[in-house]
């Protein structure tokens, strides 16, 4: 009986397994294979060498990697600080209002990211909504607020807020009220309760939210292109350029592999730490 159950389980998992293998694993293997080809070839029928990785290491691409990781880290940290009180409210205080908030945040996902970012471009650019009105009222204009690193980080925060907010709210919902009250009763200050009880007990949510935000932001490209202009070049943009304008697939593939390795390593480490079973309420 139990053996048949297990067979059935494998059978049920088969369609999804095939889909993941074709749609997820195969492209990555393809990219991995291309990254070992000599420069500027368009077929896998060549002798592998690792010249593309050599180029990645020697041509200063590490700067783009650092920009991507640095801005992703900054966005994750900022989002954590912004979302904590909001998620706390959603999980413990707002009651029915948190549903309104959820719908509001989810609705923004219905509109394409690029269109929403263009909205910000129109708002922030020289002659746009803000600068235009300021000039109209005061007579003195300024350069517009676009094309710098802080505005890119702002864009990342704006786009990836839901990915931090919801896991965080889930994590905070897991903190039992009585544990907090008991700590308070035993003499803990508000700050000590946060540090000793709430942060550790909400840690699975914090890790999942931070990972999602960080991974997505590290691979982001639209924010840098639309809001950042030429201020910095991120790794995702380098990958795009290598594949398209540069016509150097092996180089693009090698850059992608570097990004996948870094982000994947961080993600696997983080998921290892987070207790997803507890998060989903199965334990």
């Amino acid at each position, binding site marked *: 009986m139990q053996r048949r159950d297990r067979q059935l389980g494998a059978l049920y998992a088969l369609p999804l397994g095939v889909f993941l293998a074709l749609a997820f694993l195969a492209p990555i293997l393809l990219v991995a294979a291309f990254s070992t080809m000599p420069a500027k070839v368009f077929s896998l029928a060549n002798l592998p060498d690792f010249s593309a990785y050599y180029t990645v290491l020697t041509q200063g691409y590490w700067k783009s990697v650092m920009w991507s990781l640095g801005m992703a880290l900054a966005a994750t940290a900022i989002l954590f600080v912004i979302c904590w009180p909001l998620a706390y409210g959603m999980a413990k205080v707002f009651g029915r209002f948190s549903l309104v908030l959820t719908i509001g945040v989810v609705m923004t996902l219905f509109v394409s990211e690029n269109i929403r970012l263009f909205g910000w471009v129109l708002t922030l650019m020289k002659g746009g909504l803000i600068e235009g009105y300021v000039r109209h009222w005061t007579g003195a204009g300024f350069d517009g607020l676009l094309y710098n690193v802080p505005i890119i980080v702002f864009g990342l925060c704006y786009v990836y807020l839901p990915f931090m907010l919801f896991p965080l709210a889930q994590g905070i919902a897991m903190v039992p009220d*009585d544990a907090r*009250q*008991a700590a*308070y009763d*035993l003499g803990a200050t508000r700050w000590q309760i946060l540090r*000793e*009880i709430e942060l*550790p007990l909400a840690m699975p949510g914090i890790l999942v939210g931070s990972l999602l935000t960080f991974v997505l932001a590290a691979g982001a490209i639209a924010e840098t292109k639309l809001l950042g202009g030429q201020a910095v070049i991120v790794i995702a943009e380098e990958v795009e350029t290598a594949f398209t304008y540069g016509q150097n697939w092996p180089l693009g593939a090698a850059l992608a592999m570097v990004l996948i390795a870094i982000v994947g390593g961080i993600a696997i480490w983080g998921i290892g730490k987070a207790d997803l079973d507890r998060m989903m309420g199965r334990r």
Partner: protein
Amino acid sequence: MSDMPILRINALTKRFDDFTALHGINLNVRDGEFLAIVGPSGSGKTTLIRLLVGMDEPTDGSIWLRDRRIDEVPANKRPTCMVFQSLALFPHRSVGQNIEFPLKLRKVPAAKRKARALELLELLRLPAHYYDKRIDECSGGERQRVALARALAFDPEILFFDEPLSALDYRLRKTLEKELKDLHQRTGKTFIYITHSLEEAMVMSDRIAIMKAGHFEQIAPAEEIYARPVSRFVAEFMGEVNLFDMTGGAVPGLRFGPEATALYGGQSGALMVRPESLSVLAPGQGAEIAFDGVIEAEYLLGSRVQYTVARDGAAPVIVEVLRENAVSGGPGTPVTLGCPASACHLIAQEVQDAAA
């Protein structure tokens, strides 16, 4: 023991929007006392304990810890603490870390904290290696002891309990009740214990305060509450009881001897007789108070047998006798029941409750 009560509650009132949970109650608790506050759900005992530990603020009245007014002091600044109904142990901390928590908050050095935690483990009869155990590896009874140890590590002036035993099975509860009483004697601390189980209160406490609809109905030692309840509510709350309506010293169907007549002559109220005070009279045997009936039902309670005895035109009576005194015949057998006058207690005509 000093004369000043360790805790003084003065005209304490708590109103929620359209509901008054506590009606200006008063209470003095002696230093080192084990006081149980007992009441059915909705009687206001949870509201009261929340005010006492500082998780809520009273609408009116005051709470004094010795000579210091504490009702506006937040919970984390009060020298009291509570063992929660759920125990509220910290699942992400080991047994040792749980116990040390209040000491860590006070920045006690790690070595000293550990020494104290081990001391408390020993006091609670838990082996020292439990120090490193995870909370989810402990059984229900062990968690109970860890929660107690954590509260004792805080070294409170008063230790409150919010029905911490109610989730446990019967046998474990019985064991822990005795341990708790023993712990109270060994530590000499003041314990205030909230429960809806009178049995629990009677086993452990020095005094019992019975709560009903936001006020105290009676505050007295267990024996007194059991033997001389001030109201029908208390009498009925304290277990199974027979109450006969008495008017002008007479109860229809009951025959009074001279002693009983002298005791109750001309009085009115409810005459209380506990089921175990009644006995089945042999033919020709007399008693100060006696009446006739027919056995309606029989229940075995282990060492005792309980009967429901029907009477003409009156509510049935419950009798409990030892097994060896069981009536042969079972349901349908006519019996004469009796008890001495001293086994009864007259609850004087109740003044209608102001709140009701």
